[in-house]
């Protein structure tokens, strides 16, 4: 991959080649069992998130005429909650929160983690020692506990929750990329570039980075799933999204107090989290199988 990029003589050739490879990758991924289901669900959740205003049947924060705790029916497909808001509309708007939390927090973790991992893995020595000690420190906190503590010190709100999740997920990317960078550093084409006088930043960007993208992509899709769970957990504990806005986690927080009278309230937001996370995991595994040739040969082992 890196050899290709480095030797490409014309831009056109490179672009056509990349597009072909991307198409091949996509079709191979979709042939993995369950990947089609995963992609379909993720696409639906994305659509709901983007077009929530158009799709949701009611205003998610407004009390409806049906009153409180109305059972699922024709007017309100998933019923109404303890203050009479339409559950379906709140789940649809909750998709926006989940997608935002997943993408923004993992985007943050990826940017910082990949940078740290590349620097530590390629430069080695003291830089590696210092950076990885810091990474290992964050790594030793239980994810949810550290996210909880950071979110609490930043104050409630979705943005703060996303920062907290991003910080907590950074070590996973840093450790992954450092390991990859360490092994790429010893390869002949990197040595050749170094001997030819390429600057470290150029070697990192042009030679090392393209070789770590595949595991980073796989890791991202799995981490987005985790981020959605952690955001839901923070909101469930009262630290994520602020009322009256809905997150799947905050909906569960309110719902489980009405478990005896309205069990359906606890059911649907949970299904939303479960199915979304499940689909992202399946998609991540399918990508891993496609991108890692060793796994492909071994089948699903």
């Amino acid at each position, binding site marked *: 991959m890196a050899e290709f990029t480095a030797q490409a003589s014309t831009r056109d050739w490179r672009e056509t080649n990349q597009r072909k490879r991307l198409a091949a990758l996509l079709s191979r991924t979709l042939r993995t069992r369950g990947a089609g289901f995963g992609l379909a669900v993720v696409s639906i959740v994305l659509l709901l998130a983007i077009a929530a205003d158009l799709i949701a049947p009611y205003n998610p924060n407004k009390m409806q005429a049906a009153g409180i705790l109305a059972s699922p029916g024709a007017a309100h497909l998933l019923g109404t909650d303890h203050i009479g808001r339409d559950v379906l509309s709140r789940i649809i708007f909750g998709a926006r929160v989940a997608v935002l939390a997943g993408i923004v927090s993992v985007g943050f973790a990826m940017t910082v983690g990949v940078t740290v991992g590349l620097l530590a893995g390629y430069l080695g020595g003291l830089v590696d020692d210092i950076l990885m000690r810091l990474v290992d420190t964050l790594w030793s906190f239980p994810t949810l506990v550290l996210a909880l503590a950071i979110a609490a010190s930043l104050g409630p709100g979705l943005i703060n929750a996303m920062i907290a999740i991003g910080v907590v997920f950074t070590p996973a990317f840093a450790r992954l990329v450092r390991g990859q960078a360490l092994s790429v550093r010893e390869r002949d084409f990197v040595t050749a570039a170094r001997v030819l006088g390429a600057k470290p930043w150029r070697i990192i960007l042009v030679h090392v980075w393209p070789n770590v993208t595949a595991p980073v992509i796989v890791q991202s899709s799995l981490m987005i799933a985790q981020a959605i769970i952690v955001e839901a957990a923070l909101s469930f504990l009262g630290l994520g999204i602020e009322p009256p806005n809905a997150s799947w986690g905050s909906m569960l927080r309110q*719902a489980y107090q009405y478990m005896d009278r309205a069990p359906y309230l606890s059911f649907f937001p949970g299904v939303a989290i479960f199915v979304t996370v499940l689909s992202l995991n399946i998609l991540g595994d399918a990508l891993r199988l496609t991108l890692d040739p060793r796994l492909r040969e071994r089948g699903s082992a």
Partner: protein
Amino acid sequence: MTQYLLRRVAYFVPVIFLVTVVVFAITLLLPGDPALAFLGEGNIHDEVAYQAMRKELGLDQPVPVQYGLWVARAVQGDLGRSVRTREPVLEGLGARLPVTLQLMAMALAIALLVAIPAGIISAAKPNSKIDGVGTVLAIGGVAIPEFWLGILLIYIFAVWLGWLPPSGYVSPSVGLWPSIRSMLLPAISLGMALNAVTMRQVRSSLIEVLQHEYITTARAKGLAEGALIFRHALKNAMIPVVTVIGLQIGRLFGGSVVVETIFALPGMGRLAADSIFFRDFPMLQGVVLIMAVSVLIANLITDLVYAYLDPRIRYS
């Protein structure tokens, strides 16, 4: 082995130091004034008492000095007093820790009792129907959030069937069986993800080991498949499983926060959540510190066990 052990422990020390810095920094950033929290509602306008309280808590000192004092006291077992209950933090933690440890031990036991046999069965007949069922359950088990699983279990087994208590804790000193009953649903909620991850790991590493040449030789000599798996393959296949379980200790602590909240268990996780809402800074510091150090120790033990089981690690 000794050299490996020393290297690992030498790495452990600076990380522990940095953990204390992070814990201290987080509580420093928490909104609110600890001195005001200690004074209580009635005395917030009493300037003299306020300054005296700041002095007593060491808040009049520069931040590095505050950190130094905190660490020096912590090393001697003094983590301060709880803002909420006024009890020493260490005593509060001591009362809560057994509950969380019991929950984690039961979650681990349930997870392993299911995961190891299920993983072996899947690996013995890969791509069979039973393996397919195992795979689906494992993928589902990883994706289901602990708090939703807990709510579902309460609804099914407590509200609907009425077999188990919906919440609350019974200490083993009251009775072993009532205690286990009170912890059963929480332990299943907490252990589900661990169960799924372990099952997958047992399956994949056993499949890999079964492809080795020494297994083919044993099979060629006419050894029965059962003896092959249990006498020859399983021991080697369990090496990576140990690591996976060790790495999940942190996840169990994290999960205990939501699980203990749902099931109203008086453990460390619930204490972490409560400390945040009651702005109980010293208690939060204590909980987070104890959890992080426990995870570090668990990781260290995992590494050592791994090195003991797999000689290639300690000599490389």
